[in-house]
């Protein structure tokens, strides 16, 4: 029975028929999706913190409204994804608990600090850029609610990347100090951005299954290569160098070669020892706890209103 169900399920996937919440699915497919979608949602939520750090210090109103709108979008992305995840039969409170207790992970990139204003541009360009590279193929993911949420997310991401790049472009035409700030920021974010695509394919044991289930459409290394190829030209326009002596065009492959990623650093941050891991989670937990009275007030108000209604009906 189970085996034939699984076979039917795989046939649907192979024929590009989307899986919807109430359809039968293998338990492992459900678990994999819950893990991936919730990690993704947590990343959007925690991802607000590094940029939130600079909102009050934006140099002018135009930059401030753009940054505010971007951070607000990331909150929205988190909500789209949490609700997509809930269709798999897990409660929101449980998901948030997993984040707060460290049981669930989020993208390691957000465990790096935002030290200068230029970081607001570099994050838009490289971090949102890498996110877009990862997210566009997810619009065709086999799980319907996830794919539909990603369509919405991707529509909004383009503004994130463009506002960041525009910010950097302005710095690139500025004073020597501004140019220096730009270069220093790119130097710091380049390698962590490449790590956003995850371990090399050889060290990514779940990739094959995720590809067979069409949760993933391309491997980590394929997406990372595309990202590098795209960034080289964009860096040239900004007049910045990318901090990799091994970065050079490979005529034969038709791609840029690039240096080895520091995987020790990657795993170290994943394990919780990055520069901001503790700070990020503490901030999230505190925000959640400080918001308790708002949730309580809303519940009390809703209860009062419904009591009033039932009295007037009676």
């Amino acid at each position, binding site marked *: 029975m189970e085996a034939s169900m699984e076979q039917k399920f795989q046939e649907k996937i192979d024929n590009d028929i989307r899986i919807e919440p*109430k359809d039968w699915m293998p338990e492992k497919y459900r678990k994999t999706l819950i893990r991936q979608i919730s990690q993704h949602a947590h990343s959007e939520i925690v991802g607000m913190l590094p940029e939130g750090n600079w909102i009050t210090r934006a140099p002018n109103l135009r930059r401030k409204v753009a940054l505010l*709108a971007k951070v607000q979008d990331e909150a929205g992305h988190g*909500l789209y994804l949490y609700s997509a995840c809930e269709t798999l039969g897990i409660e*929101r*409170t449980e998901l948030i608990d997993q984040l707060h207790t460290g049981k669930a992970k989020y993208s390691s990139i957000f465990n790096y600090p935002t030290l200068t204003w230029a970081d607001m541009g570099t994050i838009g360009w490289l971090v949102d850029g890498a996110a877009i590279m990862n997210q566009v193929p997810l619009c065709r993911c086999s799980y319907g609610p996830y794919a539909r949420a990603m369509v919405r997310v991707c529509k909004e991401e383009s503004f994130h990347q463009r506002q960041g790049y525009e910010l950097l472009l302005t710095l690139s035409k500025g004073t020597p100090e501004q140019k220096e700030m730009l270069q220093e920021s790119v130097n710091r974010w380049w390698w962590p951005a490449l790590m956003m695509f995850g371990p090399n394919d050889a060290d990514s044991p779940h990739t094959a299954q995720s590809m067979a289930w069409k949760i993933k459409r391309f491997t980590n290394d394929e997406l990372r290569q595309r990202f590098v190829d795209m960034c080289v030209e964009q860096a040239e326009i900004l007049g910045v160098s990318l901090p990799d002596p091994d970065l050079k065009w490979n005529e034969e492959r038709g791609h840029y070669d690039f240096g080895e990623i520091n995987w020790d650093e990657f795993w170290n941050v994943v394990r919780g020892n990055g520069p901001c891991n503790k700070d990020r989670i503490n901030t999230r937990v505190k925000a959640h706890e400080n918001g308790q009275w708002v949730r309580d007030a809303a519940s009390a108000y809703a209860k009062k*209103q419904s009591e009033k209604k039932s009295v007037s009906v009676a």
Partner: protein
Amino acid sequence: MKDWPLYEIFIRSKAGLHHRHVGSLHAADDEMAIENARDVYCRRMEGVSIWAIKSSQIIANDPDEGEELFEPAENKIYRHPTFYDLPDVLKHM
């Protein structure tokens, strides 16, 4: 938030179009569901009208019985205009 119900949100993107399901959200009450839907799903004028309904109120067919449910329509090709053979000279029909 534990006892806040889940709402399904439908948005009409412009006058003349159907409301379309866009996703879901939690809210303490109906009013908050509409306000949250505005903030979550309409940040860029994506809609001119919002419907919200508690997810628990939606009645859905059992997907495992989907085949039987839709089977009656499957073999009624005579309900489609292309079922009827007409000469090519006939225009506008």
